[in-house]
């Protein structure tokens, strides 16, 4: 059944895509980070009212080291959200934003974590 549906279903649902900028700051607790997330659409306008979870994967070991995703909270600033993330170790992590609103979507960002925090980049 699913197979048939997969074959027949076509045409992307043409919609604006989201872009995210993430920066994380180290907290007093080891390996716990406060992450600030700025959401914008493709034209750079801030996106409010999004609901998403923030998870993390280690690129060096896909499909393992799952960090249980945490719900992100909105803040007063437009398009700004925050979440507290607990990782297993410092190093490279792929942060995964799994959206349920404004629609189902996923955005993946690469960050490097150390004792000061996490920054985008390699």
């Amino acid at each position, binding site marked *: 059944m699913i197979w048939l549906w997969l074959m027949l279903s076509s045409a992307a649902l043409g919609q604006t895509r989201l872009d995210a900028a993430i920066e994380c700051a180290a907290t007093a607790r*080891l*390996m716990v980070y406060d992450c600030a997330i700025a959401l914008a659409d493709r034209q750079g306008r801030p996106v409010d009212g999004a609901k998403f979870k923030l998870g993390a994967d280690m690129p060096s070991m896909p499909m393992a080291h799952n960090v249980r995703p945490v719900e992100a909270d909105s803040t007063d600033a437009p398009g700004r959200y925050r979440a507290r993330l607990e990782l*297993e*170790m*410092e*190093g490279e992590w792929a942060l995964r934003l799994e959206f349920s609103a404004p629609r189902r979507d996923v955005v993946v960002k690469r960050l490097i*974590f*150390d*004792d000061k925090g996490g920054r985008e980049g390699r």
Partner: protein
Amino acid sequence: MLDLIQNTIDGVMIGGAYALLALGFTLTFGVMRRLNLAFGAIVLCGLYAGAAAHQALGWGLLGSIAATLAVAVAAGLYVERLCFRALAESASIAAMVSSFAIWMQLEEIAALLMPRRTYAYPALSEARPWEWAGLSLRPDQLAMAAVALGAMAALGWTLRRTRFGLAARAVATAPLAARLAGIEPARIGSAMFLLACGLGGLAGALIAAVDSQVTIKFGMWAMLKGLVAMTLGGIGSIPGAVIGGLALGVIESNAQWYLGAEWRDIVAYGLLFAVLYWRRGRERPWTNS
């Protein structure tokens, strides 16, 4: 031409350390016919202990190296008992997978105890490079190569001139005959295993001291370099491990210079594949020295 000479000198320096890593694999593989995948993790444990001693207790270079060797041998003892001694001789795949599981375990313990990205390791030497006729030579790299060479000479002497060495060679070439002559292959294997871990620890300490830091990725790096160097020189051969290590160092440094950093490992693995294909992966006798 000058570049080629400079690259080759640089390659031989790091190649000395590669050779020690390759010897670590060859010694255990020769006597036990089994692959220790935890080798890199064992070295990593030693290095983290050395870095911890440096950071927490303020130990210097020699102290850190001693801590590295001691912990590498202790970790080696753990791996040998759990993954090799406890398994039947025929279970070589199980021993390999078991040592892989312990690799993961040791690395996780290291990451839990010391979760930072990098740790400082005491530097080998901070003297400036020597310049001569357009060539430059880093004293710390020279010291690394000299210590590696000394360790290899000592190993050669041990294997050729001592009763232990004789027994080890007997086990490697003719295990059944050795057993009949009253040698216990299991005990020789254990001793050789620990010796290999000590050599690996020494190689790791030298490299970490040249870089003056160590990261969690060192374990995997050391394992790959050791495996590649051992295979390049001919699986199981002791002189092959030395030649393979030096060759790998020289190939890498030249490839990096002439083709760029991103091609260094591509050339090394490509060559490895070609060598295996060409030589049909024949395993050479261990004591072909």
